[in-house]
């Protein structure tokens, strides 16, 4: 077991059973989250990134199910645990920050109670005074004034609520925080400060963060590595500098060029043709092929595997000989 990998996701598939049949929101996704890194997971709406985030804590209920895959978190495959043991892991080892903090916080509970309840559920031996002390310290560390711990959620602003969410994750010294669109509902200055906070937490607590967002600017600001999802599959994965400087997958390339960059003096925004596919009837072969400017015959037929293309940078695209070679190797193996 490689020690610097905190969470190894192997061949994860999450299916939704709808009235129209079953849809694979996440299909055969494999990736590693390294200890102490901030991994940015980007994609447009409907690509499956939020589903993936929730699957990592086995949070899905009802129509969604993990139908395949292994979730090796810190040396254990979470898929082998009985579902009733998951609450011990949630909060204590993996924390989650959601998009809209207003709906994830209990409106009739004070912030203090939120935190102390979380702590005392997982560590029942802790006394009330100790739990309160820890809560106050935590909240202050996150930039909220101590007195405000007695506020109710509606008395706080959006940015502060998000900080409270993080504090809940940190209160139990979680190893991994999954942040699902944490800044989408925030104003841009508040967002910037929140991202600063995440970076500080990464440095000070060695926190590992999976940052899920559709905003690649946010990912560029604080991530160490970036993963790009398209239509339930991973398109590209690599160091953030590498991927931004030379994106390998045509979708990533198009995405980079279609996002406005305030630092650039001029330039037009690239317009991507077509639309993301309907996942109940995805296109055959590479999911991006109907919109790809470099489409080849093989793209229409075979699904390209995610393979290393240049150094540590992985892409799922037939354009690259290493991808072709690796898949032929696997075929003959």
């Amino acid at each position, binding site marked *: 077991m490689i020690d610097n990998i905190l969470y190894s996701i192997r061949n994860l598939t999450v299916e939704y059973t709808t009235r129209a049949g079953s849809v694979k929101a996440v299909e055969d996704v494999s990736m590693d989250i390294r200890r102490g890194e901030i991994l940015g997971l980007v994609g447009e709406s409907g690509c499956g990134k939020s589903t993936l985030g929730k699957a990592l804590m086995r949070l899905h209920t009802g129509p969604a199910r993990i139908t395949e895959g292994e979730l090796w978190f810190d040396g254990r495959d979470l898929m082998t645990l009985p579902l009733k043991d998951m609450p011990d892991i949630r909060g204590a080892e993996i924390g989650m920050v959601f998009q809209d903090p207003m709906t994830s916080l209990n409106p009739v509970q004070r912030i203090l109670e939120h935190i102390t309840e979380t702590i005392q559920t997982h560590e029942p031996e802790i006394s009330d005074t100790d739990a309160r002390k820890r809560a106050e310290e935590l909240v202050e560390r996150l930039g909220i004034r101590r007195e405000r711990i007695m506020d109710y959620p509606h008395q706080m602003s959006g940015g502060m609520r998000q900080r409270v969410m993080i504090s809940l994750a940190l209160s139990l010294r979680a190893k991994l925080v999954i942040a699902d669109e944490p800044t989408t509902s925030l104003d841009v200055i508040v967002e910037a400060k929140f991202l600063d906070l995440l970076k500080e937490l990464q440095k000070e607590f060695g926190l590992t963060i999976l940052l899920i967002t559709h905003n690649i600017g946010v990912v*560029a600001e604080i991530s160490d590595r970036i993963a790009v999802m398209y239509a339930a599959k991973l398109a590209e994965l690599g160091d953030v500098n590498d991927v931004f400087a030379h994106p390998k997958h045509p979708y990533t390339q198009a995405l980079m060029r279609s996002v*406005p960059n305030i630092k650039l003096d001029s330039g037009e925004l690239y317009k991507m043709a077509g639309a993301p596919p309907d996942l109940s009837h995805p296109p055959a072969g590479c999911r991006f092929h109907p919109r790809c400017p470099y489409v080849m015959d093989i793209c229409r037929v075979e699904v390209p595997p995610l393979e290393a293309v240049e150094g540590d940078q992985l892409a799922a695209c037939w354009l690259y000989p290493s991808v072709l070679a690796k898949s032929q190797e696997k075929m003959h193996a």
Partner: protein
Amino acid sequence: MPESTTVSMNPIPMDKSTEAAELVRVEHIRKFFPIQSGFFASLLIGGQIPAVKAVDDVSFIIHKGEVFGLAGESGSGKSTLGRLVLRLLEPTSGTVVFDGTDLESISPEEMRRMRSRMQIVFQDPLASLNPRMTLGEAIEHPAQIHMPKLSAAERRERVLEILSEVGMSPPTTFYSLYPHQISGGQRQRVVLARALVTHPAFIVADEPIAMADVSVRALLLDLMMNLKEKFDLTYLFITHDLATAKYVCDRIAIMYLGKLCEVGPLTDVYQTVLHPYTRALLEAVPVPDPTHRRTEPMPPGEIPNAINPPPGCHFHPRCPIARPNCSIDEPPLRELRPGHFTACHYAEDLLK
């Protein structure tokens, strides 16, 4: 009742370099939303009902043919201002002059007719389309109201034409669909079509691409700019995203807590920032380039509430260059450079 503030006597921000005529002139617009308080509470306050000061003394001029950006965070009052310009809200005080006509002086019937020339595109296209009307009916409705001389067939022709203009082909298919049957990007096109069907001169676009997918935004922006060229439109482009504004706006105004901080040509404002808030905003925008990560710290605190904004300059508690008088004297909007206005006492410091 609004509390009295001195009305600023300074020139209204406009673009003197252009020859284009004035299309929209907004002067000292205010919009205060009174908060309901109990009968006895209002007695205690001394007869003054607290109000949310959404827009507080804003003036500017929009010239024909330009894209005038209005940027700000939540609580800045930009959406309220957009609606005030179109008279979808009645201002508490101040005037809006559209193409020479003072909108307050005309009768409600005349105002209704005026609407054929000034339209709005809302942020959420699904919410702004009547779920019980087909797309064709929705687009046709303004034509029914304002172009009574057209026969039904001619109106339908016009609608199909407009649908093609916004890129919905084949138009006859889309004519009889309902809003929930098409995608978000397509809906926004339909909303654009509805706004265009009466040949308006002026369109207020309130965060028009905020709810669209990233890959669709560029297409929509492109469409809007093409339509502007083709139909000789003028836009008031309201947004919170300064990166997008950069791609489409000619001039831009930055708002904070109901007041204008800075107004000027876009390149000037972005390159020669004259207000600490604008600078913070520009710095805060996430840049999709990991080699250009932000190093500047952000202003402390958060946006205060608009009921009791900080006295003097509203931004002073968070401002890195604030001096003692900033908490006392409200900075007037002044023209520091040609066409470039700022409401900061010490804007010159930023020039260095």
